[in-house]
Structure formats: structure tokens, C-alpha cells
């Protein structure tokens, strides 16, 4: 179960970071203050995390669950 959580967290955090970076890149073309850029990055990151967490976690769980069981049993 731990690996599901970890892999999911890596995926959704990674995508959210990418979204935030893309936001930052997009602001470079306009006249925005640093605070506006930072605030925007934070908000895009938070919303992306919220959107992705419940989507990614079940997907990873579905993919990894049978595999995990085999590993758990082998460990026992």
C-alpha cells in the first residue's frame, strides 16, 4: 500500500509542478509582478494537486494492487 501512495504522490506532484512551471513560463510574456507570478504558481499548483490526487491514486491502485499482493505474500 505504501508504494501505491508514494508512486501516486510522485505522479500527481510531478504533473502539478509541470503545470505550475508552465504557468510561470506563460507569465513571462506579460507584465506581471513577482508576487502575482508566485501567487499564481501557488494557486495553479494547489488546484492541480486537488484535481489530480483523486484521479491518479485510484488509477495507480488499480494498476499496482495485484502486483503488491504478490510481493506482500512473497515477503511473508
Amino acid at each position, binding site marked *: 500500500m505504501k508504494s501505491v501512495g508514494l508512486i501516486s504522490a510522485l505522479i500527481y506532484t510531478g504533473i502539478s509542478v509541470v503545470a505550475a512551471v508552465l504557468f510561470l513560463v*506563460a507569465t513571462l510574456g506579460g507584465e506581471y509582478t513577482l*508576487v*502575482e507570478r508566485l501567487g*499564481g504558481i501557488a*494557486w495553479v499548483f494547489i*488546484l*492541480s494537486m*486537488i484535481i489530480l490526487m483523486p484521479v*491518479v491514486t*485510484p488509477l495507480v491502485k488499480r494498476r499496482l494492487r495485484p502486483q503488491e499482493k504478490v510481493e506482500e505474500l512473497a515477503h511473508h
Partner: protein
Amino acid sequence: MPTETKHLRKINLRVAGMTCASCVANTEKALGDLPGVANVTVNLATGKAAVEYDPAKVTLAEMQKAVADIGYEVVLDRSHLQVTGMHCASCVTNIEQAVGELPGVKKVVANLAMGSAEVEYVADVTPLSQVKKAIQELGYGATEKVEGAEALDREREARQREIRRQRLNLIISGILGLIVMLGTFQPYWILPNIIPAWLNNKVVLFFLTTPVVFGPGRQFFINSWNGLKRGVTDMNLLYATGIGAAYLIAVINTFWPDAGFGGREATFYEAAALLTAFIILGRYLEAVTRGRTSEAIRRLMKLQPKRARVIRDGQEVDIPAEEVQVDDIMLVRPGEAIPVDGIVTEGYSSVDQSMITGESMPVEKKVGDEAIGATINKTGAFKFRATRVGKDTALSQIIKLVEDAQTTKAPIQRIADLVAGRFILGVHALALVTFLFWFFAGFALWFDPLSRLMLTPYPITAVGAFGFALLVSVTVLVISCPCAVGLATPSAIMGGTGKAAEYGILFKGGDAIEATSKLQVVIFDKTGTLTRGQPSVTDVVAWQQMKKDEVLRLAAVAEKNSEHPLGEAIVRGARAQGLEPEDAQSFNAIPGHGVTAQLDGRTILLGNRKLMAEQQIAFDGMLPEAERLESEGKTAMFVAVDGKLAGIVAVADTLKETSAQAVADLHRMGLQVAMLTGDNRRTAEAIAKQVGIDRVLAEVLPENKADTVKKLQSEGYRVAMVGDGINDAPALAQADVGIAIGSGTDVAKETGQVILIKDDLLDVVAGIQVAQATIRKVKENLFWAFGYNTLAIPLGMGVIYPFTHQVVSPELAALLMATSSLSVTLNTLRMRGYIPPIRRRGGGQVATSLQPREVPA
């Protein structure tokens, strides 16, 4: 506990219905043939199948189906859980998802309106403690549901605790929120004259808002975090992000005004405080009103008598009602509630049964009559013997049935579930899109520094692109309302099933209500449904010098030993005329013809034309009379004595008082009405004409009834079959809606999706009317819920801003959201006063004034 080797799991399934060794072999083969099943061992004595399987290749549902396909049943454990803390449709989806993912769980249905979850599972694989843990990990409370009065008490306590908690939260957030609002708007209108200027100080506002956000608002942050940890989102997350964002910006602008978030003029303390207050107001009102939607079941539970007076060793002993045993003799005095079900053994009284059967008039009770537990004894005292106690009483069965019905989902709910399940994510995605749009494009194109928040004098001059885009984005989160979508269907289904139960009409589920509301054709079985099912003598015609009484007496003598319903009717008819038939010296029944009997050396014949012809009786003279009687739908039987014709006795069943009125009302509602009978077409049409039925399905053998229903369905009709729940079971099962009528109080045994306790056809009409009203209410609720979100979300996204230069403030969004959720609950509560039109017109009273009419047996 299941054991596991490599990728295989082992479970013990309880299989019901196995009686012999071949059952064992069949079950082993059915399960063994499934892909992924490695080994099956079935034990007939214990009724268990030990299955070793690969969970990646075969599911529990597939195993269950394989066993069901060969005629047995995998018996699953079933638990009712009381779930606290559910507030919106997403909570339902989250619980169903989390529990449904557990191995060994076949089905889970969470009910927002009832605050419960019903789980079907294999305890051997997943114990109940694990199911509860999965729910608790999401941040909800889960306890095993108790039944009866204890359940009522616990449920009430839990609800009152929630009401008290939210009331306290509301008081704190409401008072502080109001002060924060007054402080924020202090410089405007006449407020400078009333409100001291220091209250507008941002630091003061900070100290006033912080306890609101971290006190009453804390629940949203904790619950959403619990959900996120499990990868699920719910309504709390919308609130938490909304409140959190407004508060954070306000804090930054207070303590770091030059940070670039709009400065001291762009603090949203009042937004954070009032947002919290309005959300809690919504929660409080919901907690208060939601309890009322389940009032019907609560009222039924309240009926359960607490004490019983049992006669033991000739003494009256007062004991708790749950300690009464079957066969105990009890005494009931006037005004007392009957503690359990039983049979009257001594005394006479009238009993008010309205609470169970919906019958408005008290029912007379004499020795041998059934006494129903929880009904009220009115006039005399009587003793009765307990026949059903505890969970077997009529009241317990009804409560169970209504509860089960309220936990099932109507098909119409699927669309709401589908939307609600994805709602929170969708709204967050919309909030992100909205933010990006206003940040990169909208602000530069349309922002007006003089623009205001809707319905406030508060300008948003100081905010920059980020502040404005964030404000609109937060408003989108707050204004959306999945609660209304989630509550729309279950609350109305609860109201409808409860309302129907008040009239003695029991729907077995939300799907039954929906199917009933869509009916096009209602088929009535004739005997025992449209008619009383008890034939009686209608005409006696004497031939030449014979007297009518003599004809009837002779017929009764011939039939005295008969067990045929027609024979019994003749004997009853004779006794009603004061004629006591003598015992015949001999009696012979000739199937398909009639009977012959000997009395004091005389030979009596009673039967049809065939019998008369075979015995060479001249009966032509009475043929016109026989044909006349038959054209009226009566069964004419010839009587002959010593080789000579004596007369005719005609027998017919009688229509129930309410049959014609029920048919007329169904026609008025636009439904087709058909009658199903084994009678010949001429007779059947005669009865149909009397009762006003337009379609006759005659000459149908009992075993072909289901096929006849199927034929109508194949014509494209949605069909209800009304009949006796036991004899007509196959036809009831085949119909889109099987309506079992006159089941009495043993409702658990009945087939059919709708059970009518009383033997009154008007309840068929009332049932359809309640179902239609319920589904109408569901549609109204869904219209409100979807309509609100369709209008409110674009409004929150700032669609009208380019034209009006006004944006919805987060606090106004919260108020709108709370109102929307409340409107659905209040709309459902209107069902409490609903009376089916047939009962509004005093259907019962009108019906009893009708004269019974005669139809053939």
C-alpha cells in the same frame, strides 16, 4: 480468515439451497469452471464452499453468479451501518468507492438522506471492522446500526449532537462574521456614525476572523484533508479552498501590504468569516430538516409498544414487550396498544389499525381474529395468544421493508450520482480554468477599477490580476452545490416510501417507485382481486311445480360433502335461507360434470348440461333461462331429482366494493386496465363490462399467466400485475411492477415490488399516485439542483462581469449555495402534507357505499 499462497486466496462461501451430493458436485463444477479458480471443496453438511482463487482473474460477483446460475445462492453477510458526517453526494460516492474496493465486498449502498450504508460482503474475507475502518479513515463516523427503539434513540441522539455542534458553530461564526462585516464596511453609508473606526482596523479584523476560520471552519479543513489522504474529494474541499484562499490573501494584505496582492484595501476577512458562517448555516438547517424527511420510519418505530401484560399462572404480569414469547397469553385493556401479533382467544373489542393498515375505521375483533401488534385497542378488553414476536411482528417487517426501500437507489438517481461523483473535480477544474482566463486575458480586457462585489458597496479597486482572478476562482468553488444534486433523489424517495407506508402501501425500493410511476397498463387478476374470491348463490329458478327452497335444499344436500368452492357456496346459500341440508347417504363427484347423491332413496343430480345429457334428463325447457344467467356472467347448474328436472341454481362471485371505482380512476389517470382470468370469454367479458375494464385476457390457465403478461410487455407496454402474492407469484415477478394485494400483515413473505396490506383496490390507485408524486418531486428537485448549478457556476465565473462590472462575492456565493441545498430539502418536505387524490376524495367511504355486484365464480 482467508489464507493466501502465492497469488491465490482462499474463501469460504456459504451456499444455500444444496440438498444432496449432486448439488455438491454441481456447485464444485460451476465454481471450478470459472477461470482463476484453482480449487473448490464443497461441504454439504456445513453448506460451505471453500474456494481457492486468483483475485486478479475472478471476482466474488462472478462466483456468486456461477452459483446462482445452477439454482443455489451464495449467502452474503449484510450489515447496516450508521454513518455520520456525510454532507453531500460526493461523500456517498467516496464511501461507496472506498468500501466497494475492499476485497469480499459485493455491494455497498450509502444513503445520504438516512445517514446510513448497507454493505453486502463476505465476512470471511473482509470483517465488518475493516469496512468500518475504511469509512472512518475517510473522516466519517461508522457504527453498526441498531434496530427498534434503541436505533431510534441513538439516531436521534446523533442527530441532536450534530445539530447542537453546528448551532454552536453557527452562533460563533455568525456573531463574529457580522462584526467583521460591520467593521469592513465601517467607512460606508451611515456606518461611520454608528460603528467605531477601530473596528475597521485590519489587525482587529484579523483577530476577529481567525477564530472563525480555525474554530467553526476547522471541520472543513480536517475533513478535506482526511479525504485527500485517501485520494477522494468532497464538498469540504470546496469550502476549505474557498475559505483558506480568502483568509490567506487577507492575512498577507494585512501584514505584508506591499507583497502585491492588492494591499490593505483588498482584505477579504468578511469573505472568509461570512463564507464560514453561511456554510455552517446551511449545514445546521440541513441537519434540522433532514431528520424530518425520515419521519415516517421514525413514526413507525415509535409505535412499538414498550410493555405487555402477560397472564402467567393465572396472574397478570407486566413485562417488557420484547420479552414476550410465542404462545404467551396477554391481556389488553381499552386504550392500550397491542404489544405483539396474535390471535384473540377471549373477549370482544374494536381496534384502531390505521397506523398499520391505513384503515380509517376501527376493526371489530372477536375470538379467532388476528390482533396486530402496535394497533390500539378501543372499546373492550380481550385476551390473545402471541403468534409473532420480536422481528417477526407485522410492524417490524414493515419497518424493515420501508428501511430497505429507502436504502435502494432509483434508476433516476444514476444520473445524479454520475454528476455528483465528478462534481467536485469538475468544479476545481472550472476554478482553475477561470483563474487562468481572468489572469491572462479577462483582467486586461475588462477589469474596471470601480467595479464592485455584487450587492455590496465595496469596490475592488486595489486588486491586481492575481487578486481578481483568485477572487473569481474562489467564488466558483463556493457557489457550486453538489449537495442539492446528491439530496434530490434519495430525500424524495424517502418521503415517498414513508408516505406510501402511511396508507398501507409498501414499495420494496426506489426502483419500484420509479417503475410504478411509469406504468401504462394495469392487469388485475379476477378471482380474489377484482372479486371477493368467494362465490355465492345469486339465483334459484324452480321448474314447473317445484319450489325454489326445495331446489336449493336438494342442491345443498348433493354438495354438502363437496370441497368445491361452488358446492360450498350452495351449502352456504341454503343455510342463509334457513335450510339445513341433510346428510346424503352417498355422494359421487364426476369431474367436469357435477355431482350425484342419494337421499332417502331419491337420486339427486347437480351439474352442467353434460351431466343432464348423460343421465338422459330432459332439460331443454330451462335452456333459455340457463343462457340468460350465463350471459349475465353467472354459473348455472341444473338440478334433477329421480330422473326429472327440478330447477337451476346460479352461482357467482361478487365484485369487491371498490373494484369499479379503482378501474374508473385508473382510466382517468390515462392507464389501460386489463383483466386476467381462466373463465371463458363470454363470462369474462360480462364481468369486465360490469367493472368497466377495456381489455379482457380470458381463458388463461394459471401456469400461462406469466406468459400473458410477457406478451403485453412485448407489445411495448410497461405492465403492472395486481394479484395474490402467493398464487400469482410468477405473473407478479414477470410484470414490470408486481403488486401483491391484501397481503395482510405477513408482508415479508410476499412476492412483488409493491405490497398492499389492505384488500382494497383503491390502494392500487393510491400507490400509483404516490409513486407519480414522488418521481415528480425527484424531477423537481433535480431541476432545482441542476438548474441552480447551471446558472450559478457561470455567474460565479464572472460571465456577466464584462457587461455589469460586478462580481459575486464569495460570501454571497456561500449564501446562494446554502439556499440551493435547503430549497431541495424543503421541497421534499412538502411531501409530508401529500394525500393521494383518491384518498383526498374520501375514496374509502365512497367505495363502501357501492353495492356489491355479482360475477361468476
